[in-house]
């Protein structure tokens, strides 16, 4: 199984190199995407069956070697990455204009490699390197968006690197204290105290910046909106999730902090509300979708304050139940959001292209020309809003149950209102797209060529998956718990 972990990292890296050299870049990208998905499935199955998969890169033992460990959340996000990357690659292969340039394929593969490394890395420093790889790849991808994208890209880069520095300092503190350390079981070596608190604080701010946790999110709407159509889905669905997973691993690994946890939860709540309202208010389609990502990050970190009591007092059975539910809920929302957001961004990209403008108002009546794409956007929106039977609904259910059981009524409120806000934002787009010109209006949009199936299908598949995965998703919920130590 160790080989699988190594392959997960090396395959996209090698792919990136090949893609940079050979002309048939899309083919390389697609092959790597398929292989990656297959590897992800194998790894996830192994994790689900046998628990976390361990390994070492290069065969050297710690501290010089690189410790690998694929836990449940990692495997789950790996699966997500496999599915999303394949779908996005299919879309990009079908619509070269959506890629932003020939640099697309190598950059994507670098980014994927970074993400996979984040997921399988088990020590603090490897994670740092992986995060940087992820950042550089992602910034490069944003920059493919052309002139309008350069400034957001710089902004993204600065913010992300600053976040990395904060994380690096935290890593240094940990190393100075304990020597090389696995991420997943720091609590024993790092007893609560000033040092641990500082580490937690640095990680929360640093990775919060990278994950666009409100109010550190200001870079995200600009960057995600400016990126090319085949890039935004990857950024929103995967890149943001990478740092988020690390944040959560550190949090559970170090045992958390009650007050900071509450602060994070409150910020998450604010993210849901502000992001939701802002999404409703956006005039531009891709910014609308991007703001919904801000809200979704908020959903996920809502689990932090709910998990913390159990981390602080592992003997409390009730708290353990709450923690388990919250963790499952948050992680499922993360996964569901990945699928749905990728679908939404892909669809949004196609719609912008068909409409010839990225204002919501430009979409008027576009359902007549691109019915499948509008439907995709709607279905993805349903999943984003966490309505049944989507996967996000299952996550929301768990998270709500945890919030109720944990007495976090503010979180309940946030979850419920947030869903409505997302639904409102999506409904606005769908209604505009459906709006048929009145008979007396002449400005009927000229009928263009229909959107080809191979363009529409990847997004639709993702959206349907986001909706359909809710049924029978208990295994996924179980998977997200494997090897995290939450609720045990």
């Amino acid at each position, binding site marked *: 199984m160790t080989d699988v972990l190594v392959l997960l990292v090396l395959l996209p890296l090698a792919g990136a190199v090949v893609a940079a050299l050979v002309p048939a870049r899309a083919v390389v990208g697609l092959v790597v995407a398929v292989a990656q998905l297959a590897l992800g499935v194998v790894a996830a199955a192994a994790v689900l069956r046998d628990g976390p998969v361990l390994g070492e890169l290069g065969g050297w033992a710690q501290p010089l070697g690189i410790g690998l460990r694929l836990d449940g959340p990692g495997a789950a996000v790996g699966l997500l990455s496999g599915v999303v990357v394949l779908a996005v690659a299919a879309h990009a292969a079908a619509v070269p204009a959506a890629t932003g340039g020939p640099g697309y394929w190598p950059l994507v593969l670098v980014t994927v490699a970074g993400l996979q490394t984040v997921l399988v890395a088990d020590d603090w420093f490897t994670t740092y390197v992986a995060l940087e790889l992820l950042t550089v790849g992602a910034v490069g991808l944003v920059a493919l968006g052309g002139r309008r994208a350069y400034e957001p890209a710089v*902004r993204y880069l600065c*913010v992300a690197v*600053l976040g990395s520095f904060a994380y690096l300092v935290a890593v240094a503190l940990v190393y100075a204290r304990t020597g090389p350390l696995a991420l997943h079981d720091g609590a024993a070596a790092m007893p609560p105290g000033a040092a641990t*608190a*500082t580490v*937690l*604080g640095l990680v*929360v*701010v640093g990775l*919060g*910046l990278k994950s666009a946790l409100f*109010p*550190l*999110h*200001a*870079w995200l*709407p*600009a960057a995600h909106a400016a990126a090319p159509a085949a890039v935004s889905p990857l950024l929103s669905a995967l890149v943001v999730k990478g740092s988020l997973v690390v944040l959560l691993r550190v949090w559970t690994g170090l045992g958390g*902090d*009650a*007050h*900071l946890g509450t*602060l994070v939860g409150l*910020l998450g709540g604010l993210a849901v*509300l*502000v992001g939701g*309202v*802002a999404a*409703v*208010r956006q005039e531009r389609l891709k910014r609308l979708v991007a703001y919904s990502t801000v809200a979704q990050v908020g959903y996920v970190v809502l689990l932090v304050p709910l998990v913390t009591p159990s981390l602080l007092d592992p003997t409390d059975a009730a708290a353990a139940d709450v923690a388990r539910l919250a963790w499952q809920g948050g992680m499922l929302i993360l996964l569901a959001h990945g699928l749905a957001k990728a679908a939404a961004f892909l669809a949004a990209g196609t719609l912008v292209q068909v409409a010839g403008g990225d204002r919501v108002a430009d979409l008027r009546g576009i359902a007549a020309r691109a019915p499948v794409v509008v439907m995709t956007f709607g279905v993805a929106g349903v999943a984003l809003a966490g309505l049944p039977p989507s996967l996000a609904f299952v996550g929301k259910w768990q998270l709500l149950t945890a919030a109720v059981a944990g007495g976090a009524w503010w979180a309940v409120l946030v979850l419920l209102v947030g869903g409505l806000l997302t639904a409102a934002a999506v409904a606005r787009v769908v209604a505009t797209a459906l709006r048929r010109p009145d008979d007396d209006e002449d400005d009927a949009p000229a009928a263009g060529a229909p959107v080809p199936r191979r363009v529409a299908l990847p997004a639709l598949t993702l959206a349907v998956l986001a909706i359909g995965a809710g049924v029978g998703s208990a295994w996924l919920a179980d998977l997200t718990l494997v090897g995290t130590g939450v609720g045990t």
Partner: protein
Amino acid sequence: MTWLWAAAAALPVAWAVALAGAASGTGERRRTLRRRLLRTSLLSLAPALALAVLGPAAGPLDLPWAFLGVTAELDDVGRPLLLVAVVLYGAALAATADSRTHRKAVLGALLLVCFVGNATVLVAADAATFYLGYALMSIPAYGLVVHERTDAARRAGRAYLVLTLVSEMAVLAGVLLVVLAGGMRLADAPAAVAGSPHLGVTVGLLLLGFGIKAGLAPLHVWLPVAHPAAPPPASAVLSGAMIKAGLVGWLRFLPLGEVALPGWGTLLVVLALLGAFGVLVPGVLTADPKVALAYSSVSQMGFIGVLVGVALLEPTLAEACVLAAVVYAVHHGAAKGGLFLSVTVWRFHGRGRLRVPLLAGMALLALAVAGAPLGSGSVAKYAAKQALEPSTFDVVDLVATLPLVGTVSTLLLARAAVRLLPSTPADAWGVDASVLTWAVLVVGGTVATWALAGLWAPVVATPGLDPVTTWDATWPVLLGLALTALAVAASRRDLLPRALAHPDGTLVPAGDVLVPAERAAAAALRVADRAARATGRTRDRAAARARAVLARAPVGPVDRLEDLLSAWVPAGAAVLVVAGLVGLVLGGAP
């Protein structure tokens, strides 16, 4: 003999459906089909006639699978009235077939449906079936009333429908209360009501609901507008058969003979008397013979109402009163139905060779209604007198007062005759089905009751022919005739004001208290309408305000915040603030 029962219900329904189906279309074949169907529709009443003739020999009906369970049987109350109903509806159908009214097929279909309902009311053995029939009869009858589609018909229809629905609902509520008390089977109903904790409400609802149908003053107002507006065959069944359903309802459900209800009884008697005599004024001041006939119906039903009222007052008299009421109803149904049909028959045959027989028949019917000796009316009135003799009701001397109803009837019928006979009849036709059925009614309304009363209701003594009895029956009629003569003479000699001498229905319009009631209703509707508009405006304003608030509230700050954060420096400041917050939280933690 379930099949006979089934046929009695199914055949008329089948014919009604066929007629309705054939009602539209203008082709010659369609017309022939309609005519054939209408002519043969009489046949569909045959099973019902057989039931009425067989009586208890037909056995009871029990269909637990149908509706809420259908049961029926023929008893002393239902059987004679069913017979009258069959004859009346048959006559009405025949008259419809021959009349020149338009859309005869529709009229025929409605009559058939009403018949099924009406007959069901008469024979029902349980409360649910009774209610089923009651509604099945009452609602389609609206179609009879408005059939002519004139403004008068529509107005009458409105009055009819409003009162009928009120009646319907009162009946439903009352019947449900009866069922609640354990009176699902009609045989148990009076006792159940008597023992019900909701006795008062139940009786009140029943009096109201059935009172409307039975034309109890002041709920009678639909009768004098509906009858003239409806085609005569429809008037005949409305007056002859349908209003009897109200009486049957009283007899079936009220706790007659079970418990003395002085309050309700007195109320009923007083109202009934009010109706019996009060209608004289509007009745003689009308110009329309059918209005006069309608008022006469109200008067006669008042007579019956007195009987029921007394039965409520004095349980010991109940049995006799009930039988008297049934006899009276049978008599009045046949005779009054005959009189209404006379209007049609007279209009078509009044000038031909049938003129004299027609006049004679009509005179006989009128005398019978008025209660002249030898007529069915006298039988009924005698029975009533016998029943009331022992009454201790002391508000009015009933035995002395009631014969005067005969006088009222005489006056009203005379008024009708004065207006009807000089009217120009259309060209005469030959003898047709309508004349024949009318003739049956003449016999039924004058003689048959006598026979039937003796046959089926041996408890009721038929009047002898001794002078006292004969005089008792004669003087009210004579008094009425004398007054009529006086009035005619007075008006001839211009002794009366013009409005009284040649009343045209404007002084007291048909429907009397209906007119102010309509005005009040219209005013109330206007007020309601204004109120509704006002609340609508208020609601719209509130909604607009809510929308405005919703659109404004949390959005402004968020917009501003996001605008602000989109610049680098404020966003950087936000990062610093968060870092500071995190530090504060961690530093503040113990």
